[in-house]
């Protein structure tokens, strides 16, 4: 598991630390919210001290910044609170300064925090996505989520960034005062969120107040939900977000994973059958992104059950055919 289940964590309970990594200028303090143990990617609350200045430069990792308090001048443009900045890896950002200080949330998506002074992009900068700067508070309207099934009325979204390949997204969300959702949810993807303002409650974890944060791996139950006075939060997923609603408070992540697979078989039978009836561990190919490669390396949870009741686990190297085992195939062949 790249990042552990951190839920809930309230950053107001801890102090800031100085960021002393080479490349960064003095005047940045941070609180670490979560970190990937393998690649060092992380999410941090960051305080830019009054008078902080940084020359043009880039991060070696894809980076996102959301300004929560104060304002920052970026390339001569005043970025108020609510500004969201997305910078692909190696993409140079203009000079950066704040006269009165600012508070932000920073996401380094592929590696640890890094800054390289440069007024041009890295030679291998990620050109597949564009740098963006959005004034989310006054430049975007709240929208009803278009997820199916959908959250209860009173939970609204502003999409800040959508990864074109994974559909992972960064979004603002709010719950109106009196919001209530009586179901339990889980997802196929990891999810993290930070409360910019307000308190919400979940049946598993209790209250999450202003400054509250969670990083939740896939398939972990959360909900039911409520908020008495409403909230404003920023959230992210690392893939397509589907709400799996249910009402069993005691189901385990493994059971939830199985249930998700069963739902896939019901909801997308053609895809499910195609995956099962081809050689195990064959890798997909996407004509839209022909240079992308897909590997099962790192996925060691290949535990599965056969029709004869036996089960086993295997990794990528254990390729073999299950041509006769999928239940869908058998049912069809009996007809």
């Amino acid at each position: 598991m790249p990042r552990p289940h951190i839920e809930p964590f309230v950053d107001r309970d801890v102090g800031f630390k100085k960021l002393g990594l080479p490349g960064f200028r003095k005047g940045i303090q941070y609180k670490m919210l979560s970190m990937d143990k393998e690649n060092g990617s992380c999410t941090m609350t960051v305080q830019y001290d009054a008078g902080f200045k940084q020359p043009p430069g880039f991060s070696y990792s894809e980076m996102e910044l959301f300004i929560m308090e104060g304002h920052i001048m970026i390339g001569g443009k005043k970025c108020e609170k609510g500004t969201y900045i997305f910078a692909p890896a190696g993409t140079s950002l203009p000079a950066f300064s704040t006269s009165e200080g600012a508070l932000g949330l920073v996401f380094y998506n592929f590696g640890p925090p890094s800054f390289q002074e440069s007024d041009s992009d890295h030679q291998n900068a990620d050109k597949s996505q564009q740098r963006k700067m959005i004034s989310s508070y006054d430049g975007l309207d709240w929208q009803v989520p278009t997820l199916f099934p959908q959250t209860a009325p009173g939970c609204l979204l502003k999409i800040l960034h959508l990864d074109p390949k994974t559909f992972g997204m960064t979004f603002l969300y709010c719950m109106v005062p009196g919001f209530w959702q009586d179901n339990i949810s889980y997802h196929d993807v990891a999810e993290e969120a930070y409360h910019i303002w307000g308190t919400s409650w979940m049946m598993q974890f209790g209250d999450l107040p202003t400054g509250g944060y969670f990083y939740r791996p896939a398939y972990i139950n959360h909900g039911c939900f409520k908020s008495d006075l409403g909230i404003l939060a920023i959230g992210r997923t690392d893939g397509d977000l589907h709400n799996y609603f249910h009402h069993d408070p005691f189901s385990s992540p493994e059971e939830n994973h199985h249930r998700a697979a069963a739902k896939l078989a019901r909801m997308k039978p053609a895809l499910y059958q195609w995956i099962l009836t081809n050689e195990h561990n064959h890798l997909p190919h996407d004509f839209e992104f022909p240079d992308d490669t897909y590997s099962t390396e790192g996925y060691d949870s290949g535990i599965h059950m056969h029709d004869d009741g036996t089960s086993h686990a295997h990794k990528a190297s254990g390729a073999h055919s299950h041509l006769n085992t999928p239940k869908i195939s058998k049912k069809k062949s009996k007809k």
Partner: protein
Amino acid sequence: MTLGSTTIKGNLRPKFTKEEAAFIKQELAEQIDRYKKIVAEQEALTPQREKWVKEFLERIQSRGFHVHAGLKRVIPKNEVRPRDGRPLQVIF
């Protein structure tokens, strides 16, 4: 957005610098402590959580369960899966 990335792919600097490695080591050690503290806090919440779960199961059998958006369905008792001694673990 790459929350679940398990490789260094996507970081243009292929290896950690000495300072980065030390930074990661320190932060991961603190993260373990943070995780342990959360587990203990959530463990202490268990009696209250059991009450919340009981109330939830009562509500979905009376007021209804949110199926989709504002659409609700009252869950009949025979559709509530028995606990059968299963633990109420919330942190994984």
